């Protein structure tokens, strides 16, 4: 008899060949788990190759999901359950499994060929150590699947493609999740090929009932719904949230959205998602390169659209010159950098936070630009929405930093109602002001006026040469240059008056240690800090969305602690800004391994302050 074990939270890592349908399996489990009411966080881990050779370690694709009945902020450090579709998947991921964790493995993925490709000399499943250290559940998934479909009339290839559904069914059973969502999904996905839908559903159920039938499994698990804030939720990935945020902001601002960009991992999905929303007056332009990507958006912004471009490090590097132009032109642009491992081509499918300084300084001359960083998949929405608002209301390009981790990660999102979104006010010039129009005339926030082609009487010329105060004509005058340099800088600094003041995300003001984070380290820091606060430590978590300008009270807040620790997935970038600005001896926790922080790594670093 199998018993039921109650758990607060669980991390599952699905791993197999790129061709095994791991990502689909993961996203179905995610969807079902979200609907079930757990809080969760997911993270896919693709190989760099499209389809690296089958069976090899390089070819392993992974999907990690962390869900629970309390709040979840990261996809989990080590996993409780590892599903290994083949030997390579086991080899690659065993060290990410907890001691005594469960391994579910497809035994037909451990044949000679697979073992050789995974560079196993012996079959690890026969290794006693493995059996001692972990709970091994062996299933010949391939055979089961084939058997289940023996009468389906499908060819062997099509049958084998259903394998992942067997596993999905099995883990649904293991965690007591309903199958209906996936059944509906399959029916819909294979609308035009009902025989395929039917086969998949059959195998899904076979996997589910397999659990029920075989008595080999000691216990199933229950993870009850989380007590989440009341409201309506959806599941969302970072890139998707980014795209939706852009569309929402433009809709609110009453502006057309023009996206010019060039595909690059891990930013391409923003383009893909936007291209689906043409009915929101969204135009997407796949340019010939990143330079054309941003230059087309500058053209569109001159024409009265919100211009948006997105890329990753190498592509952002190419946009530097044109960003300078946008700064000089003072047109509303949003530039998104979904950071990945660098330098150069680096680790394209891995995550990193090493483009912060590129965002601050990757342009010639004094070229200040506001920078915002998103903290989690769902936070991409709010962050880019605010970026759009700043860009439009302050007539400036704005940089938004995301990274591969949150771009591809997912979590439940209590999405806002449209009416609750902050208003964005677009201020084109007024027809009656044509007489006194000064292209670089400014309001109290130093925001210049926006007059677009087609507006009679507002004909004017702008460009990248230094502009004369107010008139915007070309000026080589020395004092004027200094004035304009100051204005461009002041204009960004003044935004500090508008952006939210900062306060601890967890913990209290005035304490021993503040952990200051930015961007995607949010979940790991929060998990660590909350845990330690529960353990009674005097520690706080402060998280920056506004990198430039920084919140007005940041200095005061940071100086209320004895120590400041700044974890970053780079060699130390934000920390330099903080030390320079406030002359405080902040310490960094740096990790540049292409992976996010585990909460445990942060916990450890914090603990060193208390020993």
């Amino acid at each position, binding site marked *: 008899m199998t018993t039921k074990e109650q758990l607060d939270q669980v991390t599952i890592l699905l791993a197999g060949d790129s061709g095994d349908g791991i990502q689909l399996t993961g996203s179905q489990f995610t969807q079902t788990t*979200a*609907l079930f*009411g757990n809080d969760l966080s997911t993270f896919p881990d693709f190989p760099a190759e499209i389809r690296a050779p089958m069976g090899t370690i390089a070819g392993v694709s992974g999907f990690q999901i962390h869900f629970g009945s309390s709040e979840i902020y990261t996809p989990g450090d080590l996993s409780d359950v590892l599903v290994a579709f083949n030997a390579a998947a086991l080899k690659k991921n065993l060290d990410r499994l907890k001691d005594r964790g469960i391994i579910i493995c497809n035994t037909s993925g451990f044949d000679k060929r697979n073992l050789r490709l995974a560079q196993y000399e012996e079959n690890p499943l026969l290794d006693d150590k493995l059996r001692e250290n972990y709970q091994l559940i062996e299933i010949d998934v391939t055979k089961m699947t084939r058997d289940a479909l023996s009468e389906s009339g499908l060819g062997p290839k099509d049958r084998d493609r259903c394998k992942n559904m067997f596993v999905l069914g099995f883990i649904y059973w293991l965690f007591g999740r309903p199958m209906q969502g996936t059944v509906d999904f399959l029916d819909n996905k294979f609308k035009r090929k009902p025989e395929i839908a039917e086969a998949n559903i059959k195998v899904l159920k076979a996997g589910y009932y397999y659990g029920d039938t075989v008595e080999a499994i000691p216990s199933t698990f229950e993870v009850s*719904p989380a007590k989440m*804030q*009341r*409201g*309506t*939720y*959806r*599941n969302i990935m970072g890139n998707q949230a980014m795209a*939706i945020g852009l*569309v929402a902001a433009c*809709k609110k601002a009453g502006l*057309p959205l*023009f996206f*010019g960009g060039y595909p690059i991992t891990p930013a391409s999905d923003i383009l893909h998602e936007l291209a689906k*929303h*043409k*009915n*929101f*007056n*969204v*135009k997407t*332009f796949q340019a*010939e390169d990143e*330079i*054309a990507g941003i*230059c*087309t*958006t*500058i*053209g*569109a912004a*001159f*024409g009265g*659209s919100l*211009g948006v471009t997105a890329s990753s490090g190498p592509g952002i590097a190419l946009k530097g*010159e044109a960003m300078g*132009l946008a700064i000089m*032109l003072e047109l509303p642009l949003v530039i998104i950098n979904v950071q990945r491992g660098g330098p150069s081509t680096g680790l394209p499918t891995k995550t990193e936070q090493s483009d912060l300084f590129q965002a601050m300084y990757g342009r010639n001359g004094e070229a200040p630009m506001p920078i915002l960083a998103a903290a989690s998949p769902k936070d991409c929405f709010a962050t880019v929405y605010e970026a759009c608002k700043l860009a439009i209301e302050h007539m400036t390009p704005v940089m938004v930093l995301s990274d591969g981790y949150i771009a591809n990660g997912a979590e439940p999102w*209590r*999405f*806002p*109602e*449209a009416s609750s979104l902050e208003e964005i006010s677009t201020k084109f010039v007024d027809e009656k002001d044509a007489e006194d129009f000064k292209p670089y005339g400014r309001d109290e926030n130093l925001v210049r006026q926006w007059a*677009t*082609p*087609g*507006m*009679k009487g*507002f*004909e*004017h*010329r*702008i*460009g*990248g040469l230094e502009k004369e105060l107010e008139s915007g*004509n*070309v000026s080589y005058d020395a004092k004027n240059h200094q004035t304009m340099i100051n204005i461009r800088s002041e204009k960004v600094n003044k935004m500090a008056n508008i952006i939210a003041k900062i306060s601890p995300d967890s913990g209290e003001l005035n304490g021993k240690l503040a952990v200051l984070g930015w961007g995607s380290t949010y979940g790991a820091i929060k998990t660590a800090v909350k845990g330690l606060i529960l353990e009674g430590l005097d520690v706080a978590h402060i998280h920056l969305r506004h990198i430039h300008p920084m919140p007005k009270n940041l200095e005061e807040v940071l100086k209320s602690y004895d120590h400041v620790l700044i974890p970053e997935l780079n060699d130390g970038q934000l920390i330099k800004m903080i030390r320079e600005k406030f002359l405080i001896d902040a310490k960094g926790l740096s990790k540049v391994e292409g992976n996010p922080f585990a909460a445990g790594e942060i916990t450890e670093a914090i603990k060193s302050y208390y020993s």
Partner: protein
Amino acid sequence: MMEVKSQEEKAKKPELKARDFVSDQDIKWCPGCGDYAILKQMQSALPEIGVKKEDIVFVSGIGCSSRFPYYMNTFGMHSIHGRATAVAAGLKAARPELSTWIITGDGDALSIGGNHLIHILRRNPDVNIMLFNNQIYGLTKGQYSPTSELGKVTKSTPSGSIDHPFNPLSVCLGAGGTFIARAMDRDPKALKELIIETHKHKGSSLLEIYQNCPIFNDGAFSAFTDKETKKKETVYLKHGQPLIFGDKLQYGVKLDGVHPIVVNIEEEGQDGLWIHDETDKIKAYILTQLFDDPEAGGHLPRPFGIFYKEERFCYEDAMQAQVDHAREQKGDGDLEALLSGNNTWIVD
């Protein structure tokens, strides 16, 4: 009644004059620069195209020529080096109704900006590209450009350039351009006409304009502009008309198979002369190959006028159509639906 009506019409379409297109900025080209002549023809052509001033935009890159927008009393952007085509492509895609003009130089368009040029031509938005070719980098004070002749001695090539130059119209035709033409600063009448033609063509129009730079490359086109030689060295293309030239129009061009040759009409008559067909792409290609050195003997005259014209849908129209179609199909974007997506659950 009639008078009233004509007044109404006047009110509708106020007639613009060349001087309405003159901006208040001092012109900063060198005395004698060919850019002046082009500016003048542009300012005199625009009133004739009947587009309102505020609906016209000039976008340029960087170079002497690229200062052009500052002198036009329309909307304008002096962008960055080589990128005018990309900026204009975005503007036109976003605002299909604007009359969009690109001003660029041989360095701006063909050196740093070569990629955007070939891509705008293939995509074919309805823009007009004025390529000021002076076969030199003017603004940076005289380095050779991708159109400078082989062996050219410049600041950067004290022993002579070793770069085989581009044949610009051949590049543009190869890239899929739908309107390819050539003019020169010193033939204002033809220049003005061709400017108007670029406007009329719906699609990306490429007008190469030979432009003299008296400071760094004086006389680069003298064979085509000097009184003594120009009749012999140039041939004007007119759709449906034979290719004839010479001071007494005594020469013609014929095709020998696929190869052009010069014949003396006085001796051989007009029979079989090449009749220009601006819709024939292969013949247009052959015309672009009439590109040899005027100094060389037995050579062919340089063609001016419209080489090629093709009707092809414009990028911005196709893009707008997709937006319109999506709106028809799915209705104007519903923000609530976008935010909620297709799979939601309620926690309460």
